């Protein structure tokens, strides 16, 4: 099948039709890349398939999404333990504080910002005030448990002492 639409150059003059018979067979022309829709935020995996004329090449790229801060084994052990049983208030407090400190340092969050951080260390939202932050994330479903923190402080709010 040939296209009958005449090709024109920049000036508008008609150009000779392309001879499609010289083209590569249909199976060799460019195909769009096959992209898998990631099931979770941590597992973003794109596998494009780029066929080339005369030679097929399958190239695989793995993109893991934005970088996550490194969590030490001590923290990951507590996270694993949290899947099996409920963590005590003291354990959970310590966990939040450790992850918040690592995450704030990793993402260079300036002091005074209010942030929502996932237990994998990712900052999911940031705002200038408590109310702004909570308004943004209220009712939103996240893949991981999210806690809120005040950068540059050891507590989110409370009584002035």
């Amino acid at each position, binding site marked *: 099948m040939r296209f009958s639409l005449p090709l024109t150059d920049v000036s508008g003059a008609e150009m000779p039709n392309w001879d499609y018979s010289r083209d590569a067979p249909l199976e060799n022309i460019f195909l769009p890349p096959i992209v898998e829709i990631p099931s979770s935020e941590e597992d973003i995996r794109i596998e494009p398939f780029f066929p080339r004329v005369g030679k097929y090449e399958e190239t695989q790229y793995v993109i893991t999404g934005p970088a996550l801060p490194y969590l030490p084994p001590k923290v990951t052990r507590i996270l694993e333990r949290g899947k099996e049983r409920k963590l005590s208030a003291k354990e959970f407090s310590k966990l939040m504080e450790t992850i918040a400190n690592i995450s704030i340092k990793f993402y260079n969050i300036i002091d005074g910002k209010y942030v929502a951080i996932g237990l994998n260390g990712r900052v999911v939202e940031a705002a200038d005030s*408590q109310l702004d932050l909570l308004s943004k994330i*209220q*009712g939103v479903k996240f893949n991981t448990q999210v806690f809120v*923190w005040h950068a540059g402080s050891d507590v989110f*709010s409370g009584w002035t002492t």
Partner: protein
Amino acid sequence: MTQVWDLIEHYRDNAAYVRVKGVIINPQSSGGRAPFNIECMIDTGFSSGLYSEESLRSDAEIVGVTPFPTEIRLGDGSKVPAYTCVAHIEEIGAYRLPPPGLKVTLFMRGTRKGYLGMEALKSCVTLFDGPAQELKIRF
């Protein structure tokens, strides 16, 4: 010139208490509203809006709002874990605030009674009349 006060509450046990009616709204779903009615002590040392017992957390979860864990500092200086979300105060005492109410931060923890903090009082004039044992608020 006499001051016109919107709300006058008498002290109880040498402290000012008000009844606060409000609602936790899920902005992601229409009709997701969890109303609450708690008695709060006015606490000028509390920097946020509202503090309530943790039983309110399950009410919020019913309407799809999952309160976020965090850490707060208590009056004695200790750090404790608590849950937080946004709430709208609709009534303070007998005074009904114009819709949609006053948007404040709500903290939930333990079984302690409610506290109304400075975030909720920042838009009004509050007078603690010690000799008359009265709390007066003008919105």
